[in-house]
């Protein structure tokens, strides 16, 4: 086990840029080599009442409410083995310090995947994936992260190691504790191993992008594709500002207007048939551009969409990202409202909408000054009101470090916070795992 000062960015054990920015200069980092070392760290932290945050490579440190100062970042990056993998079982058990890119490469070599198209895939670890539970590009078709976690080994207060679930795809022995851990932002303690169920890689993928000058036509097409398009793997609508933020080499997104991206995947015959059907639906709306996307351009486009929820590798002082959840048939209305609140602050909203899931990602660039007109406070308050009116939910995925403390991570209150806190106490009786990260300050 080694401990490094926060300023030591060049060391293999330095804080990530996000950790440094969001956890403060007093933060320290340790990276245990073994479960036993991890247990010692947890035990010591509890004894000293020192706050600690489980981490991987720090790719998701911007998520959640900021922890108290002097936090200890416990990086599990050295616990990074693939422990159990029999491709024929379509399951894999790994340590959570394993990078997502390594896991993905191993699975792809065997024609398998976890169909999540993860943001920051190249930077993050398995533990970050489970703790942050981001929405994948194909969530509408394949479900959320929690649908793929079939078991876990983790530590709770008292440095007690425990297992939940198992290595089989069907299992009802005991409580599904991994459901509570998934998306917990590490507040239930370090997760050291995770078992996933896997899917075969699709035989074929077919992706298309159409750009519409008329936003109504774009939304009509997306809605028709959702209702008549049979089994699309993804349908996304990008407003003009979002489309402009795409890398220039994504030629399919060139032009002016609203872009719709759609994807079919699976058995070749079915994909071809669906492409043809979608073509007929598209013809009804007359896009200004339409192109099939494949190869490296498709990879780039998927990365762009998957990373739309993320600020990238390092913190930015000029970016805010909110994730809004609505019923799929209300998604356009919620998107329009989200655009409106940002436009009212005289800023440019970029939105990417996962039409199948009813999820809207909103990005905008607040001003750097700290005045009331900074383009943060008012839009955030309005977003919260809009979501409550629409019975939607939302989170502030990213805010610049200097203002993160001023706004709660959850845009809409968690009605079950009291019950959640009771359960959380089971994992963290001494409140050292930074429970405020997800729920905000306690009562």
């Amino acid at each position, binding site marked *: 086990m080694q401990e490094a000062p926060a300023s030591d960015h060049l060391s293999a054990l330095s804080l990530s840029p996000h950790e440094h920015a969001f956890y403060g200069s007093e933060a320290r980092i340790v990276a245990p080599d073994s479960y036993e070392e991890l247990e010692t760290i947890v035990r010591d932290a509890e004894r000293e009442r020192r706050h600690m945050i489980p981490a991987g490579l720090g790719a998701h440190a911007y998520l959640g409410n900021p922890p108290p100062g002097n936090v200890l970042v416990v990086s599990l990056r050295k616990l990074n083995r693939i422990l159990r993998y*029999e491709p*024929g079982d*379509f*399951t894999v058990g790994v340590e959570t310090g394993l990078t997502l890119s390594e896991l993905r490469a191993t699975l792809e070599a065997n*024609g398998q995947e976890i169909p999540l198209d993860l943001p920051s895939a190249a930077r993050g670890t398995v533990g970050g994936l489970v703790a942050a539970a981001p*929405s994948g590009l194909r969530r509408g078709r394949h*479900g*959320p992260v*929690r649908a793929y976690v079939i078991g876990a080994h983790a530590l*709770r207060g008292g440095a*007690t*190691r*425990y297992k*939940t679930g*198992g*290595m*089989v*795809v*069907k*299992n*009802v*022995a*005991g*409580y*599904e*504790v991994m459901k*509570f851990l*998934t*998306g*917990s932002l590490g507040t239930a303690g370090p997760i050291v191993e995770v078992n996933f169920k896997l*899917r*075969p890689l699709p*035989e074929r993928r077919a992706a298309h992008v159409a750009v519409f000058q008329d936003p109504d036509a774009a939304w009509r097409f997306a809605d028709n594709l959702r209702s008549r398009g*049979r*089994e699309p793997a993804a349908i996304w609508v990008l407003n003009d500002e979002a489309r402009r933020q795409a890398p220039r080499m994504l030629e399919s997104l060139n032009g002016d207007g609203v872009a719709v991206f759609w994807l079919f995947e699976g*058995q070749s*015959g*079915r994909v*071809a*048939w*669906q492409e043809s059907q979608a073509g007929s639906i598209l013809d009804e709306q007359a896009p200004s551009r339409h192109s099939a996307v494949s190869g490296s351009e498709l990879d780039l486009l998927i990365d762009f969409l998957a990373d739309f929820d993320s600020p990238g590798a390092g913190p930015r002082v000029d970016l805010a990202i909110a*994730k809004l*959840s609505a*019923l*799929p*048939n209300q998604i356009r209305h919620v998107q329009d409202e989200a655009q409106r609140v940002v436009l009212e602050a005289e800023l440019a909203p970029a939105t990417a909408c*996962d039409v199948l*899931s009813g999820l809207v990602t909103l990005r905008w660039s607040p001003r750097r000054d700290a005045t009331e007109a900074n383009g943060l406070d008012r839009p955030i308050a309005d977003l919260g009101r809009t979501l409550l009116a629409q019975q939607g*939910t939302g989170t502030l995925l990213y805010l610049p470090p200097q203002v993160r403390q001023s706004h709660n991570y959850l845009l*809409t209150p968690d*009605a*079950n916070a009291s*019950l*959640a806190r*009771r*359960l959380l*106490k*089971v994992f963290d009786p001494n409140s050292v795992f930074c429970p405020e990260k*997800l*729920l905000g300050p306690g009562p």
Partner: protein
Amino acid sequence: MLFRRQPRSTVTSNPAGAGIYAELARWIPPERLVLDHSELKVYECDGLPLHKELPGAVALCASRQEVIAVVRWCNEKNVPFVPRGAGTGLSGGATPTARAVVLDLNRMNRVLHVDLQNRYAVVEPGVINIKLTHEVHADGFHYAPDPSSQKACTIGGNVAENAGGPHCLKYGMTTDHILGLEVVLPDGETARLSGPLAENSGYDLAGLFVGTEGTFGIVTEITVRLVPNPESIRTFLAIFPRMNLACRTVAEITRQGILPAALEILDQLTIRAVEASVFKAGYPQDAAAVLLIEIDGLDAGMDEEEQKIRQIAKENEAIEFRTARDETERLKLWKGRKGAFGAMGRVNTDLYVLDGVVPRTRLENVLNEVYEIAKRHGVTLANVFHAGDGNLHPNISYDGRDPDERSRVLLAGREILEACVRAGGSISGEHGIGLEKMDFMPLCFTEEDLQLQKDLRRAVDPRNLSNPAKIFPDSKSCVEVGKRHATLVPL
């Protein structure tokens, strides 16, 4: 679980009499409050007649308000309570503990809201599983989880047990179809956990709640995902001279990346029992095993998928490969599979159904071990199982009046579950732990693992009133795994 064709009466009593339970009439009308000893006997067990206990009272609840009132009364009087749906559970989850009040939820059976645009429905817990599908089928949707008891079991019960079914191979378990829950917690407070949105604020409490077998409180409203009906369904029957060839066919189908809707195997003893019963499906009685395969989805590409599966079966020496030519033939093939447990009643008076699950690649080896265990203990064992996801259902037929045979059955059952766990599997794929398998939990979990779960339970139900004495073994039985079965079931 143990099936009994003709359950015999067990000595039970209700020492409390109507007593304090009559107070429940303040909230539950007399015609829906069961206090009479003979009527209470109906509720002394669920689909697991091995364990029986007479409840103190049964409240036939018709609304959330009544559930809340009964739960609050139980808190006030320190009386345990047990939720119950159709009572089709196979692990004793709805079997009452002594003095408990059973909350029968069958009258809470309304489909409250259907939103086809957003593909979800809100139902009360007493809605029968298949009825929800009937409600939305004409509009092009269905509710995917389909336990064998789907014509009788309730969605509330499915939530409690995280029920499975043949088609969960492709569509997932109950938990994958639950979007939100309204629950009455053990202290009588209500909570809404998640809902129809993709993302909800905070922790995934609904996900944690599913499968807690009534120990976290009582579900009073359920938001479920509706799945579009497949455009096309094809059902095949592949017939094999040896069981291992059927298993290898399953392994190869999944290895090639094909995801059928269902992959079900029946062995020879099961086939013969089915063919001699009212569930007769036309299975060949000289086959060592039949594999029921169903694929569904878009019509495009179906021929190609069928051809691949046909080829895999041929390469694994299938004697014959039948295709259901129409819906009538398809339903007939399924009738044999779904009626298999019932048909086993022909073999002997009693039936012990196990629910172990193993990794797919270990299926063949574990099956061999299962047959060896049966042979070693001299018990009659048949297998009918969800082969695609490794969920075995070894059925041991026996005469429960023979104490020696009964003892051998229980020993064989324990060894089979041990074999499943040794192979990297679990003691239950879909039936739940309940009373039946609580003593086997230490096979899967350490004391620390179990303690965490008990602590979670205590955080939700500090007074241990909500379906107590389920899932977790007591400290003594941790040491003597399985002894409960051998000692607590006198005839």
